[in-house]
């Protein structure tokens, strides 16, 4: 037994790329993004990952270019260190140990030897912006304990802090107010918007802030979709603001272009909006970006923008609002109905990706290979809308066939089911839709299983459903005189005493099919579709079934809902309860 304390999970792939704003290198050749404990360096031209900067022992929470040397990169992490990297060669130069959980990092050209970080010292919800003096030393690891306090009671997110006019002031937003701290005068101005008491201003909350690079102008994003441009904020009385309103939902992030002539904004609409000259009428759009825009960043050279999305993707966008590259991480949808599968051909991990898609994710390279659009319908993102869900998928015949099931259930009695069978096309190196079966079963499909035996020249698929049937589907010629086109048809329908079929499994050689009906397992001959025998253990509803492989092929394993693993010997028809395992079933 390994002691639990010594177990350390090292995240090596599939991490969030959209946790913080991506950062461009000074020449726009590289784009940096946080990825779990690492910082990834991607090429903006080819999307390839060039370097992985490893060294932090916890989540990386902020990255910034070194303003004094644009070939170096600062990063901060929850592990309490600020590290300085040479990103061209991918090596760690220095580590500054601060010793506090660091939530975000900011650098300023005017503050040469210090960086700004967000920490929280006492209460869990109260965050402070402090500047950390980075001592000059030749050693690799330096203690940096000299903190000076700048702003208190700020928001945790780095989107709510912005430095303006070359570090003359810093703007921070939280809830219903904007505070501006002037470094030279050492004063804070605070502007409060009317809060939720009356209905009209119910969603006035600030969500993000950005400062104009040349002028004294602060842009703030709000929960109701408005963008306010504040001016004259050095005067508590004469301050003025103007409103830009296009977003119908919360503004997620704002960024000014390098010259300040345009303002970029994005939100849940998945549309990047460019406001030119900060006027309401003069705006450009880049629509259909696929998912909620979480972050927007601008390259220092001004030629590229990038947006980070909620589906773990970074899109590099040209100045003329054309998407030029996509860096896609592992999409983590809230529901992974299909479970985790491995594509036998590419050895890629296959699971639900963005809505209506299957994603093929290479574990070796920690990148997405491709997305297969299964549902093939426009996804409309709105609350309360019932979507078509991709619920089951299975590979068969060494990756030559893929079966998918999608469903949509608006009411208890109205179930829409569709099964699709996809054939691998060697020419195009992708899956092509072969057969579409509407309502293959009357009720939810619980399992899909291909017969993977070599001797079977005819691919066979079995589906089991809650309607009490299991169906065998085989590939036949599809009434074509040249007998070249093929399609899938139902060959056999089996049932057992109107019990719900819960799972199905082929033996390794394909001669036997096991179908579980609630607490009963039935064994069927795959040649004649005769019921061979039944096992009934009354140990609970069976969830999973699996035949033994190779030397153990005489055994059949079954797992029940209440955590019992059963093993049947097919030769002696005897059963053994192996052990109770204490695993809480996930909804896989």
């Amino acid at each position, binding site marked *: 037994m390994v002691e639990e304390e010594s177990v350390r999970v090292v995240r090596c792939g599939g991490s969030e790329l959209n946790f913080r704003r991506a950062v461009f290198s000074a020449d726009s050749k590289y784009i940096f993004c946080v990825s779990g404990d690492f910082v990834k360096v991607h090429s903006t031209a080819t999307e390839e990952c060039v370097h992985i900067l490893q060294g932090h022992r916890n989540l990386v929470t902020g990255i910034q270019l070194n303003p004094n040397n644009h070939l170096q990169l600062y990063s901060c992490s929850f592990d309490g260190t600020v590290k300085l990297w040479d990103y061209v060669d991918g090596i760690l130069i220095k580590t500054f140990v601060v010793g506090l959980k660091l939530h975000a990092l900011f650098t300023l050209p005017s503050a040469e030897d210090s960086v700004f970080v967000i920490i929280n010292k006492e209460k869990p919800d109260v965050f402070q912006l402090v500047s950390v003096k980075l001592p000059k030393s030749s050693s690799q690891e330096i203690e940096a304990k000299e903190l000076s306090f700048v702003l208190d009671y700020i928001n945790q997110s780095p989107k709510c802090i912005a430095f303006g*006019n070359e570090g*003359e002031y810093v703007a921070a937003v939280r809830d219903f107010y904007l505070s501006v701290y002037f470094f030279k005068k050492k004063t804070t101005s605070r502007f409060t918007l009317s809060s939720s008491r009356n209905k009209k201003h119910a969603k006035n909350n600030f969500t993000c802030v950005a400062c104009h690079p*040349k*002028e*004294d102008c602060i842009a703030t994003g709000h929960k109701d979709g408005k963008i306010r*441009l504040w*001016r*004259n904020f*050095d005067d508590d*009385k*004469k*301050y*003025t*603001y*103007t*409103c830009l309103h296009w977003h*119908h939902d919360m503004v997620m992030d704002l960024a000014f272009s390098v010259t300040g002539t345009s303002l970029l904004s994005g939100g849940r609409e998945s549309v990047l909006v460019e406001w030119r000259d*900060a*006027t*309401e*009428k*003069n705006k450009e759009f880049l629509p259909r970006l696929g998912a909620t825009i979480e972050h927007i960043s601008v390259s220092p050279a001004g030629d590229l923008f990038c947006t980070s999305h909620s589906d773990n993707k970074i899109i590099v966008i040209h100045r003329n609002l054309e998407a030029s590259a996509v860096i896609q991480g592992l999409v983590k949808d809230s529901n992974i109905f299909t479970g985790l599968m491995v594509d036998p051909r590419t050895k890629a991990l296959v699971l639900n990706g963005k809505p209506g898609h299957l994603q093929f994710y290479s574990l070796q390279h920690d990148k997405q290979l491709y997305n297969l659009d299964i549902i093939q319908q426009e996804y409309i993102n709105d609350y309360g809308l019932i979507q078509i869900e991709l619920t089951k998928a299975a590979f068969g015949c060494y990756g030559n066939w893929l079966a998918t099931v999608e469903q949509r259930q608006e009411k208890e009695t109205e179930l829409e089911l569709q099964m699709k069978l996809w054939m691998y096309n060697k020419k195009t190196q992708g899956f092509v839709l072969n057969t579409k079966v509407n309502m293959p079963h009357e009720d939810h499909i619980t399992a899909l299983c291909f017969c993977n035996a070599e001797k079977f020249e005819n691919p066979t698929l079995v589906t089991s459903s809650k309607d009490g049937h299991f169906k065998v589907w085989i590939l036949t010629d599809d009434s074509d005189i040249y007998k070249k086109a093929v399609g899938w048809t139902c060959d056999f329908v089996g049932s057992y005493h109107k019990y719900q079929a819960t799972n199905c499994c082929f033996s390794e050689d394909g001669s036997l099919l096991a179908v579980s009906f609630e607490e009963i397992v039935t064994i069927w001959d795959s040649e004649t579709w005769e019921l061979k025998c039944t096992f009934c253990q009354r140990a609970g509803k069976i969830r999973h079934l699996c035949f033994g492989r190779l030397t153990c092929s005489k055994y059949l394993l079954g797992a029940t809902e209440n955590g019992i693993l059963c093993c049947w010997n097919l030769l002696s028809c005897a059963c053994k309860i192996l052990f109770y395992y204490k695993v809480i079933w996930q909804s896989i």
Partner: protein
Amino acid sequence: MDAFGGPIWSMAVSPCGSQLLVGCEDGSVKLFQITPDKIQFERNFDRQKSRILSLSWHPSGTHIAAGSIDYISVFDVKSGSAVHKMLVDRQYMGVSKRKCIIWGVAFLSDGTVISVDSAGKVQFWDSATGTLVKNHLIANADVQSIAVSDQEDSFVVGTAEGTVFHFQLVSVTSNSSEKQWVRTKPFQHHTHDVRAVAHSPTALISGGTDTHLVIRPLMEKVEVKNYDAALRKITFPHRRLISCSKKRHLLLFQFAHHLELWRLGSTVATGKNGDTLPLSKDADHLLHLKTKGPENIICSCISPCGSWIAYSTTSRFFLYRLNYEHDNISLQRVSKMPAFLRSALQILFSEDSTKLFVASNQGSLHIIRLLEGSFKHLHTLQPQSVESMCLLAVSPDGNWLAASGTSAGVHVYNIKHLKLHCTVPAYNFPVTALAIAPNTNNLVIAHSDQQVFEYSIPDKQYTEWSRTIQKQGFHYLWLQRDTPITHISFHPKRPMHILLHDAYMFCIIDKSLPLPNDKTLLYNPLPPTNESDVIRRRTAHAFKISKIYKPLLFMDLLDERTLVAVERPLDDIIAQLPPPIKKKKFGT
């Protein structure tokens, strides 16, 4: 006086006030010299292709900007030649409109010309080089008006969508002197076109097709939050447009181009307080009198006996004799009215309908004796000052005539001796209503700042009651009313009562009761009847106010027991307006 250039589209007085510019239909800009006694043509500027819609003087008076169709011209006043011609883009949101009309121009002292046009643009031009500096597209429809503040640090524009935009000159950064114009707040208080805007030092004032005048205070210029800092919406003409013949129960309504005469209905039924009684005789539309030509009616009046109607336009004066034979009415025009009566500002008949008083726009008062079907000019009272009289009141016994101009006090004439009797001391605010009480010959004067005075004509001094109320002051809620008192009348049997009304309330001032102070409830609902007389007497005060009326146009006593009120519901006015510009509302 004719400018000989067709219709005049625009006028502008020079900063020093001695010259007047006129922009005409034929594209000519004409300069006139203003002398105390007349306006004299000075010279023509270079003639332009199309009509001159807007004009603005440079504050130094050396140059002018003239907005025409598709271009703006800058003229040198000395030479009268066009220095620059600045072409305005016809493009509107990428679509080429046929014409771009410059609705307004403003010349700033730094040489900047601001133009507003029909394509929804606000543009800044450099008049020295004739180039476009900045362009703000603010509306999808015409921008129709512009007004600049005296400090030239802020201006306001009004659009056909009913929106008013505020522009401010703000410094680009806090440590540089460079300033730029930014659009700050939009205000949407109108439903229709905003045709005119004004910029006072502390407020933005706008008005347009929807008949409202909106005063929006600038919060940053307001020191304390009090009543002056509130948004005010003012409706309605502040003039009396209805006259009444008490003897025959007739009402004469004055419209822009016609007069309507109605006989009031009557009832024989009786009922409780608050009941609506059924009419036994419906109101009759007796007469519809249309003016000849395009001129508007300035004023009109029906004699108390109902047998004379007089009205005036700018060029002619009309007098009609009405004959009643049972139910038939015959109208007979009195011919050969003298030319000096034209463009009268106010017409009044004496109580016995034998004399007609006409206040001409030259400042003199004409007295005409009416005979059966003819007239005789009796006398002309020469003006006391240059200003013209716009309000008249005659005493019921026919001895006194009171006349008031805009500022120089009220003059009281003795009609018997045809000479000035006395002058009420001048007051800072113009008079809005005048009336002479029967028997006592007390003159009641209402001013636009809501003060009410009572002046005894025989004694040539303010009455005791008037002195008391001036000493104690009016109730603060009385002074905060938005609309002026437009009519005052008296009850023939209750000499202590003064009846007056504005657009929102009808008030009876009972001089015998104590005056309210700021602690008493001014707008007291009718006291419940079950309360004892003691309480009623304690809470009663001199002002009895009823606010049950929708905008009230006119109210007068017909006889001791009948009061006539004319309402003009705002919804009726808005229903008659052209439909506002349709704007897409999000989510519909």
